[in-house]
């Protein structure tokens, strides 16, 4: 992000604040326009303008603009405007809401913002697309966007955090294949170390890589219901299910011989290094467990070529847990004004055709089951993004849902305690420390 784009973002915000009032007039209740009735005819009837705002700039902005062009083509009577707020989106939006002139639709990366705006009564429910989301995405995607029993958010651009990236040459030398399940994954690790390369590269200096690993295991051992309860802190972190997940996690983090640099080295390894050391020469480890954004780091920091040098498999399922489970994140579309044009846009964003426009350009994933995975530009994205559409269980990254003090602060809460767990391996002590920290953070 350069200074000029930031300035542009601020200017854009100012212009929005002045300009949005103009299109706030057509608030006529149009209860009849439900999804089922949006036929060719109905789309021509909608008219007005809709303003949108998100973090995207540069190529991402172009891609979203293309989506909006598709929208304007389908609804010839509507004009759609986009303003990039850059990294300052939360601040810009909060200020705009405070001033009473938010954009009609915004797409935000922080689930906490959705709740925050809903609590301020700034959001309009989008229950009119609830059935579509439930059918085309799945029940879990409705849940992710629901606050107080009403649907407010549509996870338009999703991210898959249940992926494992591996060095194909190391796998080939060791004669191992991407595993079918957790046991296969652990067996692979033993074979890999026998072949001479540590199995795991952990970016332990960044606490979030460890929370992501824990969440993937927890969703698969405890199941989605417990996952939701733990995310809300309705069950304590000393619960049997947490102990069990930590014990499974220890099979990876406690396998010191099998971690590049040992646990001490891992605690000093930041996420980018944890990726590049797997694909460097010589490789220091065979695989790295992190989300779909790893692909970007590999191509930026190493010379590895997709499929030829690196590849990806889904985080394996654990016996007795859900199959095809995905922990993810992403950008949620929310609606601040209830006009026919805004509704039309929300409806459009939930369609596979909207997703397809951006998906073809790359750097995008959708949970829409009706989106043909073949539209993704390469095999790697087809795997990571396709898994989102196929996911039977989808959950938002738990630490992102927790208060930041517990889930997102270096040297504190979950990050720090799981780093300690990496070095001491004490399951009981870790669970108790997590519970103490969670209690304090959720109380406030």
């Amino acid at each position, binding site marked *: 992000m350069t200074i000029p784009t930031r300035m542009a973002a601020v200017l854009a915000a100012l212009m929005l604040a002045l300009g949005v009032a103009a299109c706030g007039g057509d608030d006529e209740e149009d209860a009849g326009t439900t999804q089922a009735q949006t036929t060719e005819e109905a789309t021509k009837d909608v008219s007005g303008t809709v303003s949108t705002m998100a973090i995207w700039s540069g190529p991402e902005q172009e891609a979203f603009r293309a989506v909006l062009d598709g929208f304007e083509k389908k609804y010839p009577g509507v004009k759609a405007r986009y303003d990039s707020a850059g990294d300052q989106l939360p601040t810009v939006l909060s200020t705009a809401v405070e001033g009473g002139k938010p954009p009609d639709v915004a797409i935000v990366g922080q689930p906490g913002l959705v709740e925050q705006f809903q609590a301020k009564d700034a959001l309009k429910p989008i229950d009119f697309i609830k059935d579509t989301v439930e059918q085309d995405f799945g029940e879990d995607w409705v849940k992710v966007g629901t606050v107080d029993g009403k649907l407010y958010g549509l996870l338009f651009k999703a991210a898959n955090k249940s992926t494992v990236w591996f060095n194909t040459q190391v796998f080939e030398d060791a004669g191992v294949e991407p595993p079918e399940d957790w046991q296969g994954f652990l067996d692979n690790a033993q*074979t890999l170390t*026998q072949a*001479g390369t540590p199995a795991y590269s952990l970016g332990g200096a960044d606490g979030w890589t460890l929370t992501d690993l824990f969440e993937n295991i927890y969703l698969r051992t405890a199941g989605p219901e417990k996952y939701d309860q733990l995310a809300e802190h309705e069950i304590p972190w000393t619960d049997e299910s947490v102990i069990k997940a930590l014990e499974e996690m220890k099979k990876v983090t406690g396998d010191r011989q099998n971690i590049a640099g040992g646990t001490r080295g891992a*605690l*000093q390894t930041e996420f980018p290094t944890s990726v590049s050391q797997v694909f460097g020469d010589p490789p220091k480890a065979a695989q790295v467990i992190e989300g779909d954004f790893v692909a970007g780091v590999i191509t930026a920091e190493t010379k590895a070529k997709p499929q030829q040098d690196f590849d990806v498999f889904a985080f394996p399922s654990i016996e007795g847990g859900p199959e095809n489970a995905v922990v993810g994140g992403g950008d949620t579309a929310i609606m601040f004004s209830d006009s026919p044009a805004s509704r039309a846009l929300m409806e459009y964003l939930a369609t596979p055709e909207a997703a397809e426009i951006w998906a073809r350009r790359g750097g995008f994933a959708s949970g829409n089951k009706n989106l043909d995975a073949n539209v993704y530009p390469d095999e790697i994205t087809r795997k990571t993004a396709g898994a989102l559409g196929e996911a039977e269980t989808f959950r938002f990254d738990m630490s992102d849902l927790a208060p*930041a003090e517990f889930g997102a602060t270096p040297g504190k809460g979950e990050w720090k305690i799981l780093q300690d767990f990496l070095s001491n391996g004490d399951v009981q002590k870790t669970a108790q420390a997590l519970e103490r920290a969670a209690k304090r953070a959720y109380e406030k």
Partner: protein
Amino acid sequence: MSGSGNVAAVPPEGEHRTLWRRHGTAAVFLLPALVLLGLWVVYPAIYTIVRSFFGKDGFAEFVGIDNYEALFTDDGLITAIKNNAIWVAVVPALVTAIGLIFAVLLERVRWSVAFKTAVFMPMAISAFAAGVIWRITLEEDPDRGVVNAGISAVADAFDPPGPLPRALPSQRDAMEGSPQRGFTLREPVRPGGVAVLGLTGIPPRNVPEDAQQAERPPPEPGSVAGVVWRDFSPGGGRPGVVERGERGIPGVTVELRTPGGGTRTAETDAKGTFRFAGLKEGGAYRVGIGKATFAQSASGPSWLGEKLIVPSLLIAYIWIWAGFAMVVIGAGLSSMPRDVLEAARTEGATEWQVFRRVTVPLLAPVLSVVFITMVINVLKVFDIVLSLAPGSVQDDATVIAVSMWRTSFGGVNDFGLGSAIAVFLFVLVIPVLALNVKRFRSEQ
């Protein structure tokens, strides 16, 4: 500041005008500074003090001295206070001492300007950047951190690493020992027997180029034969069995311990085979590989680990500020009356006595300026901690200012507690400031 000595020269008839001129001009000149000070210092200070008696959610909730209680009960904050105490105890004294030594010694050296520039150079770097530099320099992995690269290069020169670090026996129960002691076959071998020494954990690139397909040598009466090879086929293979594609490891020193207590050695050939001939029939021989083969490259201390992070920070900080101390003390030194030194020397004082009894007492005011400046600097130390300490030890490295920032903005978002920490820091600095002001006065 009293520069009113020339006022008396003004004629008495213009007394009113002079009074105005005197105070009015002063006021006009002071006004901008006063306004700015009030706006940026006095108002925020008072606001912070008031804010520290309220809870997390603004002025809604008066909590009395709860925040101050938390200050001395929260583990993280206690660590911060402890660390700051260490900083104050170590850094000002060392910086002053090192600065003094540099200043005195460099007075007598040719090329002193070049040395001075080198020592002063770190002052030109921002503390944050200096932290990044030391962060990379002190990495534990010798491939990344230059300090440990040096340490391991020196250590390896004296105690060279073996050809097969990380290697382990393929059949754990057939061999005893450890990489530190070497591995020996559990079962003694009798003449006419074959010793099978399979190893795993060897990356393919560590097998010498001239290695050939391993071969189990035929038994021969009166001698012990055997093979050392990379006992790994893709997928794992059968441990202890020489399979197609598994290569022997040439150049490994195999040890044979005779029943009489002697030791013989033999070296493996390209196929990994070795042979001890001319042995006494019926004796039980122990066959193994010595520890030298498995010796790992020396790794150096974990500078950025939880135990050494505070010393590492202190070293980096002293590196930055020693130059400042040197320049200030050097200036004091050059303005010192030389004749006193000469007199002392003529009286027969040794150089040490001159330094101890004349130079240091005469420099005392300058030394105390450096010392006090450093105490204040160190109490407020912030950026270097943030940039040098990896996320996993941020809580071990934390100091008061970092805790204040993290509590207020960097995740916890508790402005009440954050303000309390700020006030505490302020209270700590006051006595030092008072001392400084007193010193200024006495100098005038």
